[in-house]
């Protein structure tokens, strides 16, 4: 009986069990996605922003009520960083989450200045273990950063 009281007291202090998830446990960018035709049919309107130069960033969110699901992850959006007018491969991928309930119809905010464009996740509340969320940015030289770290340059070496 005393043990039960002690257990209840600990639970009351600690609150509900919440795993201290790292970002990689709740948000993941698949950089080489296999996009099914069915996935394409479930996309909402794609939004583009110029990053300066000929570079751009785009976000095509999946409709929140019909996000593709694979292995327990839900797809939030297809993200592309690219260069207009040239046949160079875009960078980006599908952004997946384990917390789809935290995202509405517009899961990322897309912003631009004269020299860069940036997309940032917009959860309803900060994600446990991943308070800054996910971000991707491209500048007017084509350099792409993920979560503030260098990734690649569109169409060439960093």
């Amino acid at each position, binding site marked *: 009986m005393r043990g039960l009281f002690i257990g209840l007291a600990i639970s009351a202090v600690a609150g509900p069990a919440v795993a201290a998830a790292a970002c990689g446990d709740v948000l993941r960018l698949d*950089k*080489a*996605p*296999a*996009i*099914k*035709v*069915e996935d*394409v*049919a*479930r996309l909402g309107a*794609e939004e583009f922003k110029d990053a300066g130069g000929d570079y751009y960033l785009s976000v095509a969110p999946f*409709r929140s*009520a*019909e996000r593709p699901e694979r292995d327990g992850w839900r797809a939030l959006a*297809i993200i*592309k960083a*690219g260069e207009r007018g040239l*046949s160079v*491969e*875009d960078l*980006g*991928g599908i952004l997946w989450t384990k917390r789809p309930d935290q995202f509405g119809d517009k899961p990322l905010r897309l912003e631009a200045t004269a020299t860069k464009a940036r997309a940032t996740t917009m959860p309803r509340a900060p994600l446990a273990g991943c308070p800054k969320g996910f971000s991707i940015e491209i500048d007017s030289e084509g350099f792409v950063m993920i979560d503030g770290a260098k990734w690649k340059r569109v169409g060439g070496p960093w």
Partner: protein
Amino acid sequence: MVRPLLALLAVLALAGCKPSQNQGGMGAPAEAPQPQASAGPSPADLPECRRRFRMVTDRPLSLDDFSNLAAASSVSTVRMGTDRLTLSYRAFDYEDHPDDGAWNGVGVVYARGDQAGAPVVGGVIWASDVEIGSSGGYALELRADELYLTLTPNDADPPARCRGSYVVKLDTDGVLYADGVKVGTLQ
């Protein structure tokens, strides 16, 4: 014995010196165009364009493939007075599209209902030895409650000479056909 042989050689020499009407060539005298009985095979003799297309339902797209898709064009109809069916088409960029050997990606077609999470039926359309053209060469139409995507090669381009079109149809029962072959059903 010698005279017939000489005569034969003379005939052969004359035939060989006659400029070819079709070849012309450097230094050949310009000739006025001659009326021709036929400019090529009659339309009925051309191969059918539809045989130069195929739909693949299980081939996923890479990010680059997706990047080369144009925005969707769609046509819709209402089934049983309640459910709206839509046939959509996204063409690949004319100059930058996926290829698979002799096959070039033409576009992505899909059909679906309007309910959230509704089933989707569709695939990637590929073509070989036809020129679709920068305009896409497609039409989306509603005819007698059925939805049609029609792809017609650009027959101004000689390699593409063929007759007819490739047709994808969504009928009122939600069955999708590609060139008359059932692809799937929207339940």
